[in-house]
């Protein structure tokens, strides 16, 4: 068994707003390749903060260790942030990461096909039928030439899933991918999504506020506790797993 794809130790993100501060602390977190991770919790508990750090789009306030191991290479994310190597982080995102947002995040001026091809195109990957196959699997093949504006919310989320998978990333991070869809469709989309990443042996990290949607999908749930100070001015969430 290869080493962990993510290796975090004492990673902290602090955010302070007027009279209120929030801290997310990850004492230790290891995620193995091919693992399926669920991050469950009410909104505001720091799920998105953790996801953004794992997607290299949010700089931790402090960390002892933050490593990313992929394709036999170890990347020191903590150091890249410290040295402001933004373009290096962008390159890692581009090559190894897929991200599904809460709502679409699709480019309105591109067709469904072009949106799904976006990552492939900046990587210079040739069209090998992947996008068409993904579209069929996601039930989008009739919508390929439409623009996102012509689709329903559920369909747009499926396009976002397609885009996150099209360039065969090592990890897919999904932040409440079904929050804006009705519960019935949400369950179905989540099921298709997990099935697809499983079939492709992609590591997946999903945040959701509703455990019951995904508990039957066999994900490892990260534990986290939120403590508030008595006057409510400080909240700290500790994630472990």
């Amino acid at each position, binding site marked *: 068994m290869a080493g962990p794809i993510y290796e975090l130790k004492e990673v902290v993100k602090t955010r302070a707003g007027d009279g209120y501060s929030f801290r997310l602390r990850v004492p230790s977190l290891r995620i193995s390749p091919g693992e399926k991770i669920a991050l469950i919790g009410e909104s505001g508990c720091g799920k998105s903060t953790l996801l953004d750090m794992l997607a290299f789009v949010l700089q931790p306030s402090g960390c002892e260790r933050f490593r990313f191991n992929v394709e036999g290479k170890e990347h020191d994310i903590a150091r890249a942030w410290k040295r402001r190597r933004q*373009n290096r982080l962008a390159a890692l*995102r*581009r090559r190894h990461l897929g991200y599904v947002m809460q709502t679409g*995040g699709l480019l*309105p001026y*591109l067709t469904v096909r072009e949106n799904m091809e976006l*990552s492939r*195109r900046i990587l210079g990957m040739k069209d090998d039928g992947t996008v068409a196959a993904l579209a069929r699997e996601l039930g989008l093949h009739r919508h390929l030439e439409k623009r996102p504006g012509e689709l329903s919310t559920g369909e747009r989320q499926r396009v976002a899933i397609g885009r996150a998978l099209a360039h065969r990333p090592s990890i897919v991070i999904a*932040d409440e991918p079904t929050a804006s869809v009705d519960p019935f469709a949400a369950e179905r989309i989540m099921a298709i999504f997990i099935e697809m990443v499983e079939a492709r042996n992609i590591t997946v990290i999903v945040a959701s506020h509703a455990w019951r949607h995904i508990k039957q999908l066999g994900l490892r749930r990260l534990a986290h506790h939120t403590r508030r100070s008595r006057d409510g001015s400080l909240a700290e969430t500790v994630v472990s797993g």
Partner: protein
Amino acid sequence: MLLRHWRETLGLASRDYFHEWQISVCFVLALAAVLGPMMVLFGLKFGIVGTMIDELREDPAKREIRPVGSGRYDRAWIDALAKREDVAFVVPRVRAIAATLEVGSARSPRILSLEVIPSAAGDPLLPPGAPAPRGLRQVVLSASAARKLQVSAGDGLEGSLVRRFHGHKERVRLPLTVVGVASARAFGRDALFASVQLNEALEDFRDGRAVPQLGWRGTPPQSRRYTGFRLYARSIYDVAGLEEAFERRGIEVRTQAADIETVRRMDRTLSAIYWAIALIGLVGFSLSLGASLWANVDRKRRELSVLRLVGFRTGDIVWFPLVQSLYTALFGWALAVAIYRAAAWGINLMLAPQLDAAQQVCRLLPQHYLVALGLTAGASVLAAVLAGLRAARVEPSEGLREV
């Protein structure tokens, strides 16, 4: 890889620009509304002043420098003048009273008393490329003289002149050939252009001196002094300098320098006014486009952060507003050119009755269009750079969630 990124960014920026065509059309219209009138204004300035300068340039009379009254100049002095860089043409003049000739032709019953003007090759009053009068037999007529005598190039004339010699009235006849006709614009009066040699012969005859080549008797010739000269500066811009040079030598001259200076001063003043307006217009346009692009970055924060998320680099994102503003510059310029063309056509049509066939009140040269495009693109890039830097600072995590 760099090229691919750049190409993808260019493609996406273009798609966005055309997808949001309503907003893009507004940008283009805003630009054309500033640039179009500016081009019309410049076209008018260039056309009006250009026409005036062309008139100055084309009219040799504007380059003429004439001595006031009569002086005494020798041939060597005149030849030295001819060698000056800023002098296009100079010939000596004989006494005005001697420089006349009565001329008749076989075709017309009229006898004209013509002013005789010394001429030579390169005379600005003669049509370019036409032969200049040479020797004692060839002449060029002014247009009005040729019309009255009903002759044209190649026809013969008969000149005659009278003197009192030894108490008797003596008349000689002088057969002449017309080698050319000067245009009516170049010279309006009845006149006959003849070589300096023929001018000297006429003066010698009237002064009672012999002209052996024509068989005219008289006293032997003496060393000659001329009373004046016909001088043309190389260009209208040399007139003032030459005038100064003559005045320094104590020769009072009359020139059109004042007219020329008036037009040049007007050109400078109008140019200054125009550039002030153009500068204000361009700065205003840059500011308004810059503000719109700046606001655009806010509006598109989410889309830009999506691009950052899928791995576009900071440097790629800067191009987004830049490419879009260049589109605005290009289309706005094209529309402004169309506006200008329509306006110029209308203005020139309206004023056509007051103008010569080739004249245009509103006119631009091809390079003016290119300068307009260059300035517009420059102003647009300037406007976009700030927005671009701002776009590059969009954090990928900023726009991921709707607040």
